[in-house]
């Protein structure tokens, strides 16, 4: 690496979680005074790598060298001592404590054995100023701050620890554009001060602006390292996925748009400040997409239909009739026949320690029971059908569903709802974090269900999916429908332009399409 002695080096690092191999003989070198970008698809091993660096998890094998001598970190505190500080994707702030408490949390200033609040406040103010977030009051409780401010606190907290190596894991995902600009300024200054920075992001334009050195991870291995700017975006994407990137989408039917009466309709639906006068229709046999940046109200819209939100204004109509849906139990009732594939399959879709069988039949127990007693033969038949239909790969029906791969877990979530033969299917980003093969199967399945007459409302953060799967796409911005795209209008360019709420069609965006910016925080 340019002949410089690496400040930090990892060699032959491997880590397994149960049967899953997260890292396999991974290598990484970090040099002072440079910004090192790490790229890779979800599940490529990036997160595990930095968790090991930061002392959060222990590697199964391999060694780490700091300043040329071997080190091990028993805890995050030990890594911090050595000067390695990480800003994690999942925020590591304590919600009930104040901003100042959080900033100094790992090593508060002390006076007579007690925490010196004045000194603490001073340190906090300095750190916030360095991070360009002097607008945040040090006494405010973290739980009262919006997500973008919390992320700034997180960065200030890292700076207050005077790191030698600073790791940023998707640290800009919730920030506003102005904040991102500030942070970039801060990061460049830190680089000139001789820090080593490790930068993990899905946003190619950010990496292009910041990085000196890039390393690409794939399937738990580092597959390439190169100086920034020496490869084109397309080459990088190929390195990440290992082959030409192409989804195969099922053909869309040619149809006269919206001739059939809508099955699901919303009229002027509003909820707190998150949903703003949304009107939409979904007809039988139609796949309607929800687009836009993440966090623009798509999730809330699906929850509103599914009876989870209170205090809605406006109307929901099922088969043209105004309907009040007071709970998921009401939503799944035969009269409505709705299903929701929720955002987080691990906490909302499944009970991980329970068996595949129990999870599959969980939403249909009322149908499979007579007088409350489960008809086990009927249950078995239906489960066999579903396992066959979705080609769920499992070692058996009586193993915990948590032992399945992510893609198969997601299939179980979908199958559990298909057991009720829903007429209206709401999907909340169902392909997040699952493998390409399974994604393809899900696209096929979605179209098949629509052809059988289901009305499908499909939210995705992947624009390619919206383009490939949907008959129409509604783009949400700040809780309102900004634009409706039909048929051939659904292009990457149109999606991105309307997602950012701009009308120009000449957006310079290759790369952003794969990873729509998370919530440019309205």
């Amino acid at each position: 690496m340019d002949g410089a002695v690496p400040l930090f080096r990892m060699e032959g690092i491997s880590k397994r979680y149960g049967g899953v191999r997260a890292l396999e003989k991974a290598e990484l070198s970090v040099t002072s005074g440079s910004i090192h970008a790490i790229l890779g698809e979800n599940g490529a091993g990036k997160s595990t790598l930095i968790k090991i660096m930061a002392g959060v998890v222990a590697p199964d094998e391999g060694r780490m060298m700091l300043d040329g001598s071997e080190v091990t970190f028993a805890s995050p505190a030990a890594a911090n001592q050595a000067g390695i500080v990480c800003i994690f994707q999942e925020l590591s702030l304590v919600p009930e404590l104040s901003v100042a408490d959080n900033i100094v949390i790992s090593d508060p200033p002390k006076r007579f054995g007690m925490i010196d609040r004045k000194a603490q406040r001073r340190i906090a103010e300095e750190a916030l100023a360095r991070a360009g977030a002097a607008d945040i009051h040090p006494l405010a409780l973290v739980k009262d701050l919006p997500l973008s401010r919390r992320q700034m606190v997180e960065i200030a907290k890292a700076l207050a620890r005077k790191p030698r190596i600073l790791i940023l894991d998707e640290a800009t995902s919730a920030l506003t554009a102005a904040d991102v600009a500030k942070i970039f300024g801060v990061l460049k200054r830190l680089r000139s001060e001789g820090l080593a920075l490790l930068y993990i992001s899905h946003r190619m334009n950010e990496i292009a602006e910041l990085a000196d050195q890039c390393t690409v991870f794939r399937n738990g291995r580092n597959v390439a390292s190169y100086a920034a700017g020496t490869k084109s975006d397309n080459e990088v994407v190929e390195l990440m996925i290992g082959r030409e990137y192409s989804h195969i989408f099922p053909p869309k039917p040619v149809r006269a748009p919206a001739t059939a009466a809508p099955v699901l309709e919303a009229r002027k639906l509003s909820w707190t400040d998150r949903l703003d006068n949304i009107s939409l229709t979904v007809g039988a046999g139609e796949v309607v997409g929800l687009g836009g940046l993440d966090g623009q109200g798509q999730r809330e819209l699906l929850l509103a239909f599914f009876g989870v939100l209170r205090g809605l204004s406006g109307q929901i109509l099922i088969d043209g009739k105004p309907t009040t849906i007071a709970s998921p139990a009401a939503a799944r009732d035969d009269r409505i026949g709705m299903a929701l594939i929720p955002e987080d399959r691990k906490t909302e879709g499944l009970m991980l320690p329970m068996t595949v069988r129990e999870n599959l039949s969980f939403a249909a127990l009322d149908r499979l029971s007579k007088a409350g007693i489960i008809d086990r033969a009927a249950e078995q038949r239906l489960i066999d059908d579903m396992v066959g239909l979705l080609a769920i790969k499992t070692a058996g029906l009586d193993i915990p569903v948590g032992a399945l791969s992510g893609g198969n877990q997601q299939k179980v979530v979908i199958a559990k709802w298909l057991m009720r033969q829903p007429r209206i299917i709401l999907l909340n980003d169902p392909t997040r974090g699952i493998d390409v093969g399974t994604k393809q199967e899900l696209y096929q399945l979605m179209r098949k269900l629509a052809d059988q007459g289901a009305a499908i409302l499909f939210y995705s953060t992947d624009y390619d999916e919206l383009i490939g799967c949907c008959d129409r796409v509604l783009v949400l911005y700040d809780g309102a429908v900004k634009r409706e795209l039909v048929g051939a209008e659904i292009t990457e360019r149109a999606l991105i332009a309307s997602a950012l709420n701009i009308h120009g069609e000449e957006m310079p965006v290759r790369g952003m399409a794969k990873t729509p910016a998370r919530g440019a925080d309205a």
Partner: protein
Amino acid sequence: MSETTIGGIAGRMPKFIRRADPAVLTAFACIVLLLFLGSLYSRSFLSPEYLLQQLKVASFLGIIATGMMLVILLGQIDLSVPWSVATGAMMACAAAAYGPVGVALAVPFGIFCGVLIGIVNGVGVAYLRIPSMIITLATNAVAQGLMVVYTGGFSPQDSATRAMRYLATGFAIPGVPNAVIIWALIGAAMVFVLTRTGFGRTVYGIGNRERAAYLSGVDTRRVVLIAFAISGGLSAFGGVLLAGYASKAAQSMGDAYLLPSIAAVVLGGTSILGGRGSYLGTVAGVILITLLQSILSVMQMPEAGRQIIYGVVIVAMLLLYGRAPASR
């Protein structure tokens, strides 16, 4: 109570009989060990009469622990057991004072009062989202207050009805005490409910992840409410039987059943965090605790020593196999 379970959701199956569940096996092994130790102390320890007597004593705890288990499977706890037991006993005896109708309705009325306590608990936990530990302590205090007012602070003079005494001490089948039969029936019903009904599946589902159960379109609040009502009813039924056993109710008769009922469930391998456990384990836990109590009393151990040994044994056994997974 945030549990850091980074890599720790080891696969466990909530099935009635799990192949070699270490907790249930350990509990049964401890039962055998206790019987062995007891037989060293006294020959009569292995006699059928003695064992049957123990089973009879165990059945009161067994019935109460059945309700407790249902609640613990939900990831909740019922600390109102002491005064649910006492309320059931006292109200059944009280009803008996109201002529032949009262005598006839004594048992159902006692159970009904327990169900009422359980419903208050259930409404608090399911609909008001008050932590179960807190709301059940509060209803326990209220039930105690009501009973103190009712009895004037003394043990009530009303005595148990003949039906109550028959249920607790009679023999419908020669050689098998009725209390044991009742426990067996309740236990069988519980096994059936847990393994074969939608309600049982839902209980496990809620215990594992209430959010996912709710988003599956299950009315989780109703299930929680019903579970607490059943727990209250079974506690009260236990109290009714205990009153029949002793011929009358007493002020603090339920105090001796809170810790043992929780301990029996947890020692039987049911996770205190909910979602995992089998009734077979609870049966083992109940018998284990009863034998332990019996041996201590045969050895004429004073109350103080019993409490100490009790607490130590429970902590020791939980440390053996009831620990939360290590973080990291």
